[in-house]
């Protein structure tokens, strides 16, 4: 070893011996601010490092203004505003002009705000500013680009179940905010179809006006010089009316639930669990931020340290109590873990959530957590642009410009007691909604320890499921009356309808024939089925909503799922429909041809839409279809019931042969041997 090396080794210091020189100062640039008569507020920061100018308009608008039946309107408007060009320059010409100059202009409208941006080489600024103003003021919204945006949106909808993570976040938000909430609702094929050009023009017109605009500019310019150019250009924008950022309330009820989405092409579960969170104006905000960082903060938070590094259960695990600027955030924790370790991971996370409440953090852990925050503060302002962006976001949210500085002070004052106190006040580990997206076959019964599992159907509603085209209600009623007369030639039914049948079911092992005797009373909502199965006789009884099953002298309650299915079949029975036709919302949508035969299509609109195809001569329901979730297939299927060989007995018509199909695949066939009313 040479002498010089010894000296070098001597100069080396281990991490805990290093003394740091003071940090170089960062002079936060002053922001030049001014306002035009039309209400536009400007924020300017010079930055001459690169020969570029970046401009961003933040607009008070958003998806929160869009009604549910037009979900997606904000997204389509934001997209077509740019792609459709203006009344002076077509979208194609604009694309060429900008790309030839390596310039960018983009527009978008999110849930809580809209934006328009321009990024240009500084020498092109004067040339392109008028075009940007034109885009803000006079977007053309041509039909062909509207259609393009809608096609694209629908394509994205069709692909939304391919990514486990996306499914998990989406369905979890629905659990927290409600499926119909503006904060969680889906954009569907039908809602995209509902969007008209008029809607788009309206949303743009009321949004992109001076009263709603903040304009930020950062780049290589002289403030004094550019100010006049901006004033001249942006004065053209009409003042319009100010949109208030008023967001719908969230009406949350704490509940413990366990929910499951079955996805058969994965070998890993994505788990989300949590409940509603809070808002930014909570006086405990700083304490909550510290609690969040104890729980999850890169590799140093408890979740990563324990669930990932020590237990090896996950690559990705995270959590936080969210505080929204405009509406309550969510408290959530999440993990992606092998199917086999799903329950173990849920319990490991739960333990960490409870631990926040049950024990105080050590002073050391608190100090480390606060140090991580304070020492990384310098990255909050790692560019001149970041100063501008922070100020604009605070102003947009209506927060004080010194909010962040105050937060820093408050965080320094947080104590170990504070952390435990906010954990106890705001976290509810007893009332977590748990969502698992994963492979049902691999997960097995792991989830049952968390309660009765609610299976979520994520199949994508096709546009015809929610067809908005109204049929003819009057004609619908007439057809139903005709059907009732045909089904019940005696005019009604008094007593029990009893029939005996052979039910041939297709199973993976082949055909199986079950003998069936059913007694239905339509006055009392009573249903008794006696099934002769290979394992013996089973009696299923449903009276006044109470279901039970009897077999070999044993009696047990009917599982909820099965009860639901039996009741659904009862409500679809042609006799039930005939008797209760007055209360049904029926629409005649026209004559339709199926397999070469013509039928009258009557749609019964209910929770699940039922389609009756009536024989135009006899008015009997020859075909019935509806869509439902099939847990075995893990998706929605179209069920079709074909009824033939109608036979009358005791004033009631029964189809002596009926065949049912699931997605055109034959599932079962029922042959009735006799029926009577007693």
């Amino acid at each position: 070893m040479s002498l010089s090396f010894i000296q070098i080794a001597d100069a080396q210091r281990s991490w805990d011996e290093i003394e740091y020189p003071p940090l170089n100062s960062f002079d936060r640039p002053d922001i030049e601010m001014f306002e035009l008569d039309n209400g536009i507020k400007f924020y300017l920061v010079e930055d001459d490092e690169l020969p570029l100018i970046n401009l961003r308009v933040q607009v008070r608008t958003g998806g929160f203004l869009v009604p549910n039946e037009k979900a997606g309107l904000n997204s389509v408007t934001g997209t077509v505003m740019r792609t459709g060009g203006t009344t002076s320059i077509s979208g194609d010409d604009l694309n060429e002009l900008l790309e030839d100059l390596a310039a960018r202009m983009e527009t978008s409208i999110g849930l809580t705000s809209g934006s328009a941006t321009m990024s240009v080489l500084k020498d092109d600024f004067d040339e392109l500013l008028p075009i940007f103003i034109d885009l803000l003021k006079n977007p053309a919204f041509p039909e062909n680009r509207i259609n393009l945006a809608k096609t694209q949106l629908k394509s994205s909808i069709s692909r939304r179940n391919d990514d486990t993570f996306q499914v998990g976040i989406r369905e979890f938000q629905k659990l927290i905010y409600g499926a119909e909430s503006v904060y969680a609702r889906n954009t569907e094929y039908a809602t995209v179809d509902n969007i008209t050009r008029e809607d788009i023009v309206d949303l743009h017109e009321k949004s992109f006006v001076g009263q709603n605009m903040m304009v930020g500019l950062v780049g290589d310019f002289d403030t004094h010089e550019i100010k006049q150019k901006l004033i001249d250009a942006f004065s053209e924008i009409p003042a319009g009316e100010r949109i208030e950022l008023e967001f719908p309330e969230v009406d949350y009820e704490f509940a413990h639930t366990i929910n499951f989405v079955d996805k058969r092409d994965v070998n890993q579960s994505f788990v989300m669990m949590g409940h509603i969170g809070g808002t930014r104006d909570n006086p405990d905000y700083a304490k909550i931020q510290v609690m969040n960082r104890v729980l999850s903060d890169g590799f140093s938070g408890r979740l990563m340290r324990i669930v990932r590094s020590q237990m090896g259960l996950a690559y990705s695990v995270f959590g936080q109590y969210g505080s929204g600027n405009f509406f309550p955030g969510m408290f959530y924790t999440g993990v992606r873990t092998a199917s086999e370790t799903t329950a173990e991971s849920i319990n490991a996370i739960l333990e960490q959530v409870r631990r926040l409440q049950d024990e105080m953090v050590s002073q050391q852990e608190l100090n480390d957590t606060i140090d991580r925050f304070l020492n990384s503060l310098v990255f909050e302002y790692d560019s001149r642009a970041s100063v501008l962006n922070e100020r604009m976001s605070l102003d947009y949210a209506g927060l004080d410009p010194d909010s962040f500085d105050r937060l820093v002070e408050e965080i320094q004052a947080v104590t170990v007691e504070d952390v435990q106190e906010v954990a106890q006040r705001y976290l509810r580990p007893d009332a977590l909604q748990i969502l698992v997206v994963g492979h049902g076959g691999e997960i097995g019964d792991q989830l049952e320890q968390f309660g009765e599992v609610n299976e979520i159907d994520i199949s994508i509603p096709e546009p015809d499921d929610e067809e908005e085209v109204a049929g003819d209600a009057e004609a619908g009623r007439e057809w139903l009356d005709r059907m009732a007369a045909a089904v019940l030639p005696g005019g009604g039914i008094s007593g029990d309808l009893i029939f005996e049948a052979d039910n041939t079911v297709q199973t993976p092992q082949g055909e199986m024939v079950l003998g069936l005797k059913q007694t239905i009373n339509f006055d009392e909502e009573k249903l008794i089925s006696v099934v002769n199965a290979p394992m013996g006789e089973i009696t299923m009884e449903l009276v006044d909503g109470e279901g039970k099953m009897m077999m070999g002298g044993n009696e047990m309650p009917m599982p909820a799922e099965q009860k639901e299915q039996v009741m659904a079949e009862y409500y679809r029975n042609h006799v039930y429909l005939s008797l209760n036709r007055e209360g049904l919302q029926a629409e005649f949508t026209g004559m339709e041809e199926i397999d070469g035969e013509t039928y009258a299509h009557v749609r019964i609109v209910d929770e699940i839409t039922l389609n009756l195809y009536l024989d135009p001569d006899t008015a009997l329901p020859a075909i019935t279809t509806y869509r439902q979730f099939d847990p075995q297939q893990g998706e929605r299927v179209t069920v079709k019931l074909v009824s033939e060989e109608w036979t009358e007995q005791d004033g009631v018509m029964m189809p002596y042969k009926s065949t049912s199909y699931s997605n055109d695949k034959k599932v079962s066939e029922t042959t009735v041997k006799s029926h009577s009313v007693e």
Partner: protein
Amino acid sequence: MKFSKKPVLGILIALLLLPVAIFSQNLEAFEENVTEFTLDNGLHFIIVERTVAPVASFVTFVNVGGVDEPAGHTGIAHIFEHMVFKGSKTVGTTNWEEEQEYIDRMDEAYRAWLNEKYRPQPDEDKMEQHWEDFERYKEKASEYVVTNEFDEIISREGATGLNARTGYDFTDYFYSLPQNKAELWFSLESDRFQNPVFREFYEEKDVIREERRSGVDSDPFGRLREEFLSIAFTAHPYGRSLIGWPSDITATTIEDTRNFFETYYTNENFTFAIVGDVDPDEMRELAEIYFGGIESTHEAPTVKTIEPGQRGERRFVIEEETQPILMLGYHTESQTHEDWPALELLSSILSDGRTSRMYRRLVQDEEKALAVQTATGFPGSKYPSLFITFALPNQGIGLDEIEEAIYEEFEKVKEGDITQQELDRAITNARASLVRSLNSNMGLAMRLARIQGQQGDWRRLFTYIDELQNVTLEDLQRVAEQYLVKERRTVGKIVNVDADDEVSEAH
């Protein structure tokens, strides 16, 4: 306001002259802020002084990746990358000497278990015994661990963005610190690469298995990519799984991983880049102090396999529940080949931006695709690799239809259909994206270290733009004719099991 083509062309000509000036100034101005030095032991450093804010980004680039893995140990480059975060002999442990004992015994037991497991007739009792030993030593070793202490030390000092990436061609390790804490990086970085400890090795392999499940097994794109490469490459290691085949992950031990590290992590394979508000002289001094004493005794091996020519088109179909995806790839060249700039520009003209040929036709005008993207240099660029195309068809559009349309666009290029305006636009945008990338400490540090580490001169970040300038329309036509041909092609598809018309016949 009306826009004719004329003023647009006028602007274009002005612009063609303008950026050249701006950029050449840029390289000169930029170079003024760059300090470069190589220590006597061969370790190379690039320091860029950028005083915008009191922060700095640190990148350790290692010219070693998935291609360098020994057979039977795919994923080992990535496993080692994870181990570097476990600390050193002094960071992350309460007693290294004792911990090391148990780590060694644990690995020994694991190797014994592995050997038994893969015998033709494994002895179940022995396996169980080895496994029990393994579990016991693992438990003992874990008692000394201060979990994630490495991260805690730097995070407490304000570090952000701590991470690493393993690619086929390279591995890099990076984070940012407040500028006054550069010495902490020197101290910890030299320590963790001199003293890798393979702590929590088997727990971490479980973490990596989860990473594989997220990124490959449970992700349609991940599944398609892995399958695609394994079919497109017969001999070259670009065809192997980067994160590792599951059985290889199981079969990889601490001993294997240490061998890999010792073989490949040689001084000449390291390049360091620091960008931010730092004093270059001080950085040099610290480099001498902390890295000057690291010697390496041998040269790392390099990949010598050359992918043989294809004997015909290769096609495969994955049938699953996902919506359809199309992936095409043509064997091309590496980033040092003279055709590289033309291939990159061709890709840009075909699919970058709203004026690109494939976007305009397939996405916008014919509404056939949700997205189409081409790229060259997949899955790496150090060795001859692939020119690829991904396409997501819109609902109701068959993959065959999209595939045909893409081939038609390739044919047009071969017929010389690309205009000078399109070529100029692609070059202008390459320039502009270089400028736009210069204001990020981390982005710059990563790119400079990588270019230096792989191609020997960071200046190529700038001079490459001049090479683009020399590409002609004839070059574009020629590379299309030469490379975008059926005999060089692999076609992979995901088709939806529920759709009946998607499984296509070979073309």
